[in-house]
């Protein structure tokens, strides 16, 4: 099945699933309330967005300079910087390192980039055990699923679902509270930190001037992954750059507010090297892998380049009417929602992934809630335009639009079409054709009821009305 048909199939299943919808509505509702509360602590949220947009513009439009500055300053403290053009290279770098250092088990904190390169499957094929330590990701790993949402991996599950998963996989008794479940994960994973040979984390930001990565989290698992094992590897997309350390003073709160409705997440940790002389603990080695994997394709498109400003907060997912209906898994991508629809065609091919940009009401809420003010809904439109001009549309679609185009430019043809449609609709309704399997426009009428076409067009009414007014004078 093509990605587009799969998407259509899965979206229909999710859209009619009322239990799924109720879970999602509860989660996004709680999120909305918290975001509104914390945004109120800013005197000028929108102003913060514009500053953030400017900073990211500066970083992305001098990306080569800032990446090299990062490399220079972090290497001075003993960090080993690797560059990976694609997923295969990134996986290979990690595998080589594991083999050279005798790593059999590693602990991981939440990282969407490692999902993007399918690191876990790759390591398992090579007999290395990756253990996810973020609670949500741990549940996802136990269930052999993919994360449902870039920030909230198990947004689609209830407490009872997770209780059952733990019962089946860990043998715990059923009937736990959310706290009980979290404490089970804490107990099980504690031992993993202490016995793992390597910790792998992502990075929310790469700070160029001081040569640090910055990790945002709530649980403390990323801190443990980067404190206890003897090797720490951070893998990050090249677009994560910020020019200066002080930029974090704005970006950390913006990410927290938009991500989870917190003023600041519990732990924001900047790491700029392995254990230094005079420090009492910390990993002996610190590696940073800078990953391209299609990001430079997006960079080359000046019109859509700003999609690389994204800080992966998930606000556009939570605010998207499509996401709220079809859910995260239907997208079939690592990055869901509007931002996923915008960037996936650049990362994985427009022909295969254009359909996501068409699955949008273009309401613009994604743009409004974006903390770095990416013009997301216009980028969806640009993807649509690019898909059509690259010839990725069906002949029937092209024919329809050609007819529509000529109709709209020819007044008398348009008038005739309106009269014919009115008659056709009446007949169709009278004989019960509308929405039936033999209806020629069934794909549309199947799920939607068109309003009845008015008996009189506005222009006819206007002409009559003018005449009437004149007569009354």
């Amino acid at each position: 099945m093509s990605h587009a048909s799969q998407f259509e199939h899965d979206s229909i299943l999710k859209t009619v699933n009322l239990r799924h919808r109720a879970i999602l509505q509860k989660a996004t509702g709680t999120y909305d309330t918290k975001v509104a509360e914390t945004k109120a602590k800013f005197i000028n949220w929108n102003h913060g967005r514009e500053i953030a947009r400017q900073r990211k513009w500066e970083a992305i439009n001098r990306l080569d300079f800032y990446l090299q500055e990062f490399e220079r300053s972090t290497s001075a403290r003993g960090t080993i910087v690797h560059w990976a053009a694609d997923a295969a290279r990134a996986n290979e770098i990690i595998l080589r390192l594991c083999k050279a250092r005798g790593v059999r088990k590693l602990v991981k904190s939440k990282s969407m980039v490692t999902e993007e390169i399918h690191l876990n499957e790759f390591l398992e094929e090579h007999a290395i055990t990756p253990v996810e330590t973020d609670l949500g990701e741990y549940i996802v790993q136990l269930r052999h699923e993919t994360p449902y949402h870039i920030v909230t991996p198990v947004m689609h599950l209830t407490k009872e679902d997770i209780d059952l998963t733990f019962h089946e996989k860990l043998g715990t008794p059923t009937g736990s509270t959310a706290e009980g479940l979290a404490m089970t994960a804490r107990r099980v994973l504690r031992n993993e930190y202490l016995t793992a040979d390597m910790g792998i984390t992502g990075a929310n930001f790469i700070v160029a001037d001081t040569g640090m990565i910055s990790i945002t989290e709530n649980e403390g698992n990323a801190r443990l992954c980067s404190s206890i094992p003897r090797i720490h590897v951070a893998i990050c997309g090249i677009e994560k750059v910020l020019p200066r350390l002080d930029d974090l003073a704005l970006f950390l709160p913006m990410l927290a507010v938009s991500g989870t409705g917190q003023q600041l997440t519990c732990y924001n940790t900047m790491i700029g090297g392995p254990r230094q002389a005079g420090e009492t603990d910390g990993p002996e080695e610190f590696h940073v892998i800078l990953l391209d994997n299609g990001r430079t394709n997006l960079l080359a498109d000046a019109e859509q380049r700003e999609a690389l400003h994204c800080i992966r907060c998930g606000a556009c997912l939570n605010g998207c009417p499509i996401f709220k209906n079809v859910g995260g898994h239907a997208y079939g991508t690592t990055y869901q929602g509007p931002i996923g629809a915008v960037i996936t065609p650049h990362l994985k091919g427009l022909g295969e992934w254009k359909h996501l940009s068409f699955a949008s009401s273009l309401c613009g809420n994604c743009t409004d809630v974006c903390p770095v003010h990416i013009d997301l809904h216009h980028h969806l439109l640009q993807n649509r335009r690019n898909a059509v001009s690259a010839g990725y549309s069906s002949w029937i679609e092209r024919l329809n639009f050609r007819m529509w185009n000529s109709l709209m430019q020819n007044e008398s043809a348009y008038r005739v079409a309106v009269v014919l449609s009115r008659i056709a609709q009446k007949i169709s309704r009278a004989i019960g054709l509308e929405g039936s399997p033999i209806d020629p426009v069934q794909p549309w009428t199947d799920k939607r009821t068109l309003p009845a076409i008015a008996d009189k067009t506005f222009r006819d009414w206007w002409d009559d009305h003018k005449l009437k007014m004149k007569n009354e004078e």
Partner: protein
Amino acid sequence: MSDRASILNRIQNALRTPAARPPEPSPKPVFPPIAPTDLVAHLERELLALKADFHFSSNWNDARQWLKQIADQHELRRVVTSPEMDAVEAGRSLGARTLTGDGDCGRHLADLDLGITTCDCAVARTGSVVLTPQSGFGRALSVLPPAHLVVARKSQVVTDLSDAYKLLQARHGRNWPSMITFITGPSRTADIEKILVLGAHGPKKLFVLLLDF
């Protein structure tokens, strides 16, 4: 061509076509001001909202009483402290063992009830304490034990994150430590149905003792 060269090459080629620059934002403040006299109260409010414990002391006698009280309440028996003066003094009333940094940090801190550290500064706006491997005595002491006590001085309280970064720059800018962490409340998760649970992987309890004398 190495991956490094090919990525940098692709970036440079891509950037030959310039992207429209967004309008310059005006230099208006993003956050409301906090009066200097309100800093400690603001810090306290934020910490309590985060479900951390806060105590303000103007002498060691008072501080020791509070420490004994929390130790009893939360059964903090196996306690270690960083060798910094304020931390050692606070640890004394809890029977804390003072760490040497010689092979007794990292994973060796797994079976404890409480770790005591100082901090580089505290941020009133967000209720955060800022630690480096110097003030936090390594990386593990403030995250591995199930409870963490931070001893800070009133003079260490700053208004905003940007003030904290200025202070860190002045103190460490020539020779950055390998880690800086902003701790904002006890460890938490809301991954399950957005229900807040404290103590996900890091400390379940965070105590902040602010000294003013």
